[in-house]
């Protein structure tokens, strides 16, 4: 390996809250060579972002480097100050942050902000800025430079920041969850871009992410961070194949692997939660959650042991850590629903008139009405899990809200057991309300901070279960147990719960009324993998026991393939493909489905980014403008027909099925985390 240009030695960082000092990073030792990308993975609260900022000397006001050195080309950043530091910042140190919109000044034009970063003479800087934008594959640099941040799509914004970070000759590049806020397809493109830009400019890079899959794709080596410590560091492949730390192992186990199915292979989450800063245990930080932990672990803190070249771990019993060997690629039988449909939608449509921006009005554009749903027909069966996938803006959420009755559809009908449903909740009979429940995406907002968990769970029992508050109170513990939470949680308030726990309570609340259908709208997306695994298990378990049906909305195909029986792929408010999960996903037929799958695949096809403001084409196939396999005029002119592609498997595309199958055969199955 080339000689390291970034050397982090025993770096410790602490935040002070009031008078208290909270250590968030302890004795971090890392080194990165030019052009090398070191992955930094860990759950939220592990201190990975802090690490990134500390290295850049960009810690917030209440944080400080309490010990250690950060050597970049031999200069200790921890010691540099004022003008020297500013020179380093402008020349060598770069950051690509998680939330591009927040990172750009909302009231300055992109051009101005780039020019400011580049410095030097104005015209020269502008030329360079344009060039940079072109380099990050922005089609129309001039226009972008004239626009304000909010006028660009998330992907574009991120590209702008990448351009900003890569002018000149950056020596150190910190990528802090650079794609978390993006769609899978966009993410894929951005990651590719980053990869070859790093190769081109040769900075030492830290790639910080909670997404092991991403790290696997871009990082040559990966460090696992836990509670402010590096618990394991190794070449990425090694790390994934032979993890030598229980925590790493736990993370990998809690991922839904391809071929695994909820009904046969429950995931193995890490129980417990990451210790809050300032509450670190005496011995090994992971001991409280560690299956291998013994007294020694609780007593003495393991050092970072070098167990192989480039492979170190912080575990006394690393040799006992084994990942249960590669799993048999287990193909799911394409089961066809037997029993009667529970809920069906008929040509369900929803158009949303949008508000205009002053600039749009100034440009005299007509107020755009987005076709959020157009003529969606789907059927949900008892005791089955229907997954819905698609990019943001595909209408997934709108569909869910229409079914629940939170937003009235503008056309079409919904039938519950062949009884038409009223468009809005308060128009529906109590019984219907009870039968359909939903869990929303954001666990932080799911619970009312003013009410105890018990109260939150009691209400649906009273309102929908028709129980008196006494009996309701008695049922609460069962509900908590149902989602694997201790009964005493009933007395806690939301701010005393972790995100995962909140989401579990939200699920319990939704289940309290014993619904027939539970809609889960990105219900696990906001959770760390280990927590997500636990929630997925809970869901699977409940479904097995109660025979409830799920409508499972997500952008994460791995989860869908793990959990769903049937899949619906949506694009711009239309269903483009639907059928049994196995049939749809392997191999994918519809070009869009293919693209979605390929997104997690280093060598897969890539889509052009959706234009943020643009609306679906008037006629023809809605996906055609981005379709990599479009076959010309027909796609533009006529809307594609439905085709049967197998039992209960339908696809909407002009390309003959045969051709599609051929095209797909040499794409290996759904990409794994390996």
């Amino acid at each position, binding site marked *: 390996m080339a000689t390291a240009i970034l050397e982090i030695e025993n770096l410790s960082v602490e935040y002070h809250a*009031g008078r208290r000092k909270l250590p968030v990073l302890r004795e971090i030792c890392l080194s990165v060579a030019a052009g090398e990308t070191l992955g930094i993975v860990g759950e939220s609260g592990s201190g990975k972002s802090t690490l990134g900022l500390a290295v850049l000397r960009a810690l917030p006001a209440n944080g400080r480097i309490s010990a250690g050195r950060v050597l970049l080309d031999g200069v200790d950043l921890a010691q540099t100050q004022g003008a020297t530091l500013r020179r380093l910042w402008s020349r060598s140190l770069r950051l690509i942050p998680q939330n591009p919109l927040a990172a750009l000044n909302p009231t300055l034009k992109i051009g101005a902000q780039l020019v400011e970063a580049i410095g030097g003479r104005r015209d020269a800087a502008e030329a360079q800025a344009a060039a940079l934008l072109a380099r990050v594959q922005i089609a129309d640099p001039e226009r972008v430079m004239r626009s304000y941040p909010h006028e660009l799509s998330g992907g574009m914004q991120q590209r702008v920041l990448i351009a900003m970070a890569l002018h000149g000759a950056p020596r150190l590049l910190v990528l802090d969850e650079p794609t978390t806020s993006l769609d899978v397809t966009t993410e894929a493109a951005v990651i590719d871009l980053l990869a070859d830009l790093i190769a081109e400019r040769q900075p030492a890079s830290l790639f910080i992410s909670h997404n092991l899959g991403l790290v696997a794709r871009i990082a040559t080596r990966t460090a696992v961070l836990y509670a402010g410590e590096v618990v394991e560091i190794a070449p990425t492949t090694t790390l994934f194949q032979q993890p030598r730390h229980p925590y790493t192992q736990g993370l990998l186990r809690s991922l839904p692997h391809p071929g695994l199915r909820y009904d046969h292979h429950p995931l193995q989450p890490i129980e417990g939660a990451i210790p809050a800063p300032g509450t670190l245990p005496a011995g090994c930080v992971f001991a409280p959650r560690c299956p291998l932990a013994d007294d020694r672990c609780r007593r003495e803190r393991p050092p970072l042991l070098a167990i192989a070249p480039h492979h170190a771990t912080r575990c006394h019993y690393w040799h006992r850590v084994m990942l249960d060997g590669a799993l048999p690629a287990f193909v799911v039988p394409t089961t066809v629903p037997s029993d009667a449909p529970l809920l069906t939608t008929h040509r369900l449509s929803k158009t949303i008139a949008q508000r205009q921006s002053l600039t749009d009005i100034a440009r005299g554009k007509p107020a755009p009405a987005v076709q959020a749903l157009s003529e969606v027909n789907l059927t949900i069966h008892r005791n089955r899990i229907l997954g819905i996938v698609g990019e943001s803006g595909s209408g997934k959420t709108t569909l869910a809200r229409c079914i*629940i009755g*939170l937003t009235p559809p503008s056309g079409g009908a919904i039938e519950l057991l062949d009884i038409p449903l009223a468009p809005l*909740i*308060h128009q*529906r009979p*109590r019984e219907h*309300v009870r039968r359909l*429940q*939903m869990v*929303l995406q*954001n666990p932080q*907002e*799911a*619970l*009312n*901070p*003013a*009410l105890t968990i018990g109260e*939150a769970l009691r*209400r*649906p029992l009273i*309102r*929908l279960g028709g129980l008196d508050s006494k009996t309701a109170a008695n049922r609460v513990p069962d509900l908590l147990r149902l989602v694997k939470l201790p009964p005493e949680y009933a007395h806690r308030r939301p701010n005393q719960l972790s995100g995962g726990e909140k989401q579990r309570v*939200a699920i319990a*609340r*939704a289940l309290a*009324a014993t619904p027939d259908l539970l809609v889960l709208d990105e219900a696990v997306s906001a959770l760390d993998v280990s927590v997500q695994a636990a929630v997925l298990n809970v869901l699977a378990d409940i479904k097995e026991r109660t025979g409830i049906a799920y409508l499972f909305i997500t952008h994460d195909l791995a989860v869908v393939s793990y959990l769903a029986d049937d899949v619906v792929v949506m694009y711009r408010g239309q269903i483009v493909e639907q059928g049994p999960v196995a049939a749809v996903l392997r191999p994918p037929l519809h070009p869009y489905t293919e693209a979605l799958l390929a997104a997690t695949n280093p060598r897969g096809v890539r889509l052009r980014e959706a234009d943020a403001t643009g609306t679906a084409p008037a006629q023809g196939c809605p996906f055609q403008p981005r379709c990599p396999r479009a076959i010309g005029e027909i796609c533009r002119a006529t809307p594609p027909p439905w085709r049967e592609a197998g039992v209960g498997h339908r696809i909407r595309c002009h390309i003959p099925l045969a051709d599609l199958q051929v095209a797909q055969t040499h794409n290996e199955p759904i990409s794994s985390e390996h």
Partner: protein
Amino acid sequence: MNVQRLGRAFFADPATAAGTIIVAGFLTLALFGPLVAPYSPTAQNVDLIRQPPSPSHLFGTDRLGRDLFSRIVYGARDMLALAGGGTALAVIFGTLIGVSVAYLGGWLEELVFRLFDGLLAMPALLLALLLLGAVGPSRVSVLLVIVVVYTPIVARVARSVVLTLKPRGFIEAARMRDERLSYVLWRELLPLVAPTLAVEAALRFSYAIFLVASLGFLGVGVQPPNPDWGLMVLEARNEFALAPWSLYVPAAAIALLVIGVNLMAEGVRRAIGES
């Protein structure tokens, strides 16, 4: 929200503590006025006209030989009763209206808040003067004025908070179980609106003190011989040169109370921000 933590955050900062002490001080003055005040606020002594401050008359006496200290003490009553009471009522009405109307939305919201906009389009003092002209000066009228002037403002604040809460998951969850309106309004929303309203209330209170005093000074508020602080300033203007203390004393009282309330308001804001 955890009360102890709130309390601690609240008193952590000396300024806040100072403010609280000041306000508490005036409150006790108001409550135990008769015990504290050496004389009746209106008792006159022909032989002690315009006495400078002295041990027997801490703040001196005015042109009619009334003890200013006693007047300040009793004035605190009026001030807290009117400004405080008025604010309290305004906050209550404003909250009830703001929360419910904002949650229900629709034409009702449109109607109510158009009306409020109409009221808010008038600067507070202008509206107050018009109203007082209409109903005639008296304690009750002043109270009424404060309520009318501040209710719309509070309602607006409450509404803005509710509008941010409405799309939250737990409210949708409530809708998904077809929850009782009263429950959503008072059990789910109110506790979350409360903190913001607490800050707003403290702020309103300090403005109300000003308003009451200003009305007193313009002679349309509380009537003589009531020891209204603003009125005392007005009456003192005629004899500022002869007995400056008769102006300084009520002025100082107003200033002190307002500052106290402001410090408290700051504290409330910070405390809520932290927890």
